[in-house]
């Protein structure tokens, strides 16, 4: 489905602040994979997601995604490596860490949903001048939004013409999640999307995430700092360190993981590094 081949990214190249964020990253996702990603700060988790989404260009390597052609139904490989961010959005849905980032505060809930509903729709002048939103969202669309909002269980379906700025962080994050999946994406990227929420809301949003991903059979990648969540959710877990994947586990083996296993793994990595440092000094 998604393939990253030998991806490198260095920030501030050639300066004293040089930071190798991705260091020859290889990753392959199968259709329907729900991957949780853990790793220390600066391991390259967010960078990886940002590279896939196209926020920054990669230095070298290749990112491809497989997509069915809408007409012929033939699977084809699309090279995302140098595609601008807004074009990749046709394949990728995203939820950010910052609840403010995923929705437009000054616009109504239904307007936000309408924008999201047209994420992968065709472009062009005729499309651009088609009237929609607010004065022209069809009744059928409104019903769809109503039903979808209802599934969140937050009562937002009764407030469809409220400005999104009036919602709480948790409500906005749930809405963003709905927006990212309203038009089924090939790939869903979740970048610590519950990190800014209180524990109870975080759990609600996380459960919702699991449900939406399962119900729609989405392929998803979720960065988290919570190891329990990383084990509980998804069918595959990867651990990153210094811009590489150092641990990749799936299926039964993943189900049987414990937090202590992951911690041991972490220590192994940093311990190994410590040993290397000793060797260099001696």
């Amino acid at each position: 489905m998604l393939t990253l081949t030998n991806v490198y990214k260095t920030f501030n190249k050639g300066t004293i602040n040089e930071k190798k964020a991705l260091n020859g990253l290889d990753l392959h996702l199968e259709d329907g994979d729900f991957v949780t990603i853990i790793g220390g700060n600066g391991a390259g988790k967010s960078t990886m997601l940002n590279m896939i989404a196209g926020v920054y260009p990669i230095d070298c390597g290749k990112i491809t995604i497989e997509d069915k052609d809408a007409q012929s139904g033939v699977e084809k490989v699309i090279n995302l490596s140098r595609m601008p961010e807004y074009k990749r959005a046709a394949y990728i849905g995203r939820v950010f860490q910052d609840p403010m980032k995923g929705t437009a505060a000054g616009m109504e809930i239904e307007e936000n949903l309408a924008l999201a509903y047209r994420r992968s729709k065709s472009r062009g002048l005729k499309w651009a001048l088609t009237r929609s939103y607010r004065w022209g969202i069809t009744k059928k669309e409104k019903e769809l939004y109503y039903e979808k909002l209802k599934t969140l269980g937050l009562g937002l379906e009764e407030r469809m013409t409220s400005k999104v700025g009036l919602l709480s962080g948790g409500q906005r994050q749930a809405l963003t999640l709905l927006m990212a999946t309203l038009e089924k994406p090939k790939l869903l990227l979740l970048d610590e999307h519950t990190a800014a929420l209180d524990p109870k809301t975080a759990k609600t949003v996380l459960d919702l995430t699991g449900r939406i991903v399962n119900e729609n059979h989405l392929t998803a990648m979720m960065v988290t700092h919570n190891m329990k969540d990383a084990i509980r959710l998804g069918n595959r877990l990867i651990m990153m360190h210094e811009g590489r994947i150092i641990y990749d586990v799936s299926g039964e083996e993943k189900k049987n993981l414990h937090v202590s296993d992951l911690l041991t793994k972490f220590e192994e990595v940093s311990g190994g590094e410590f040993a290397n440092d000793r060797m260099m000094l001696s």
Partner: protein
Amino acid sequence: MGNIGALFQALPGAVSQGVLWGIMVLGVYITFKILDIADLTVDGSFALGGCVCALLVVEKGRGPVEALLMATLAGFIAGAVTGILHTLCDIPAILAGILTQIALWSINLRVMGKSNTPLLKVDTIFSKLVAVSGMPQSTVAMVTGIVIAVLLILFLYWLFGTELGCTLRATGNNEDMIRALGRNTKTAKLIALAISNALVGLSGALVCQSQKYADIGMGTGAIVIGLAAIVIGDVLFGWVRSFGSKLMAAVVGSVVYFVIRAIVLWLGMDANDMKLISAIIVALALCIPVFINKWRNYHSYSEEGPTC
């Protein structure tokens, strides 16, 4: 201070001026309110509209309506230049606007070939309509201005309800989000800047035809007038919610601004002080809500808990 009769005599002219400048305010509204950018191109593109209009009507002998259209096109291009500097070259919006504005100063001089052009002996849309209707110039200017403004408001109301328009609104709201939803924010900004300055150029040409001269300095401070009008409109009509009414409020704000200006002049103040007064109006209108809020917060504090 003159007598009150003189003030009443000055009012129709002030109102008509307010309406014609109101079209520029609509342009400023697009960038300042919707896109959340202070676009300083406006000073240049307003004068550009006037200069292009004067050149066509006086030197080239073209019709006044054609001159209006060409001025609109010139403004569109000026806005597009700012847009390209901002989006393609990643220059901050304010700086991109300043660059275009300063470049337009020289361009405007080149266009006219001198620093001002009178339109005394040529037909303008206003002189033609005066001849047809027999109404006084200021009434004709006001009615024409209102008709054009209403048409433009209808156009903008339509535009900002389209897919493109909503992309523009969302771009001003949250750029990251709308890019993640697959819209090209750079194109959106470029289009918005171009349309905004097209309106400004049109307004410049209309003002040029109504005052019967074009001047290289006619756009100086236009952005401040635009902001003042928007702010006045906001204060007077803060309660309106629909987009169309908000645009209307901006035009009314412009009329109120020019009426205030007429009163200030009638009070015997120097016309050159008007820029200072404009700046004070904008500054006051922007900071009064802030201070009211702070004052309220400060005074609603009570140590004993809720008093209600």
